[in-house]
């Protein structure tokens, strides 16, 4: 189902992931979050931006445990744990945050 951000339409796949990662604008994350009844805070954006950088460098959307490990390395151990990340993204930090970040569904996610 396509999503509409500031009057512009973005194609998504059947699971709601953006069809073209290069189309992404921050508004995509805001609109997707709103549909999930989630208010994006600075902490959410840290993870979303982190995922975009991760993809840029490694060309892959990380599985949840890899995300946890990588966040711990980059943003500190207090953030690199499942409790913190699930607190931010209750539908699963990798799946949900990757979707907001315009990334494909993580490899190894079912």
């Amino acid at each position, binding site marked *: 189902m396509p999503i509409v951000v500031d009057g512009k339409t973005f194609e998504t796949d059947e699971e709601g992931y953006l069809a073209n990662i290069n189309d992404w604008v921050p508004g995509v994350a805001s609109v997707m979050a709103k549909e999930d009844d989630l208010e994006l805070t600075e902490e959410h954006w840290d993870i979303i931006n982190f995922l975009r950088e991760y993809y840029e*460098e*490694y*060309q*892959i959307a*990380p*599985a949840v*445990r*890899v995300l946890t*490990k*990588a966040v*711990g*390395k980059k943003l500190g151990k207090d953030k*690199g744990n499942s409790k913190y990340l699930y607190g931010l993204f209750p539908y699963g930090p990798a799946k949900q945050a990757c979707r907001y970040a315009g990334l494909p569904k993580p*490899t*190894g*996610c079912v």
Partner: protein
Amino acid sequence: MSEVVKKFMYLNRKAPYGTIYAWESLEVVLIGAAFDQEVNLMFIDDGVYQLVKGQDTTGIGMKNFSPTYRTLGDYEVKNIYVDADSLAARGLTQDDLVAIAYEDMDTEEEIENIVEVVDAARVTELMDEADVVFSF
């Protein structure tokens, strides 16, 4: 978390991009690793080209997935081997290959590069030790 069930060895024998094998193998490896299996990778024959540094796919319109090999450490893959003879036969050395770092989050032990070049005898040994061998 599930227990380690089997020791998997993934043999990578083909150059990237010409066929789908290299990418398929990488995806299977990442999925296997995400499910806590013990994953071993071996690059042999033209498969050694998968790890060559500085790949550029702009001319062929395909995604350059070579940077993804560098995440294997994050996926808790610790055993990555390259066959020495295959490298030598192609005029390559370890310096031509990407380095894959590994960090143990519990002990904070850091290994700068887990890619290990091994001789033919060790290749045989490693294949014998594996419970399951997948050839791509």
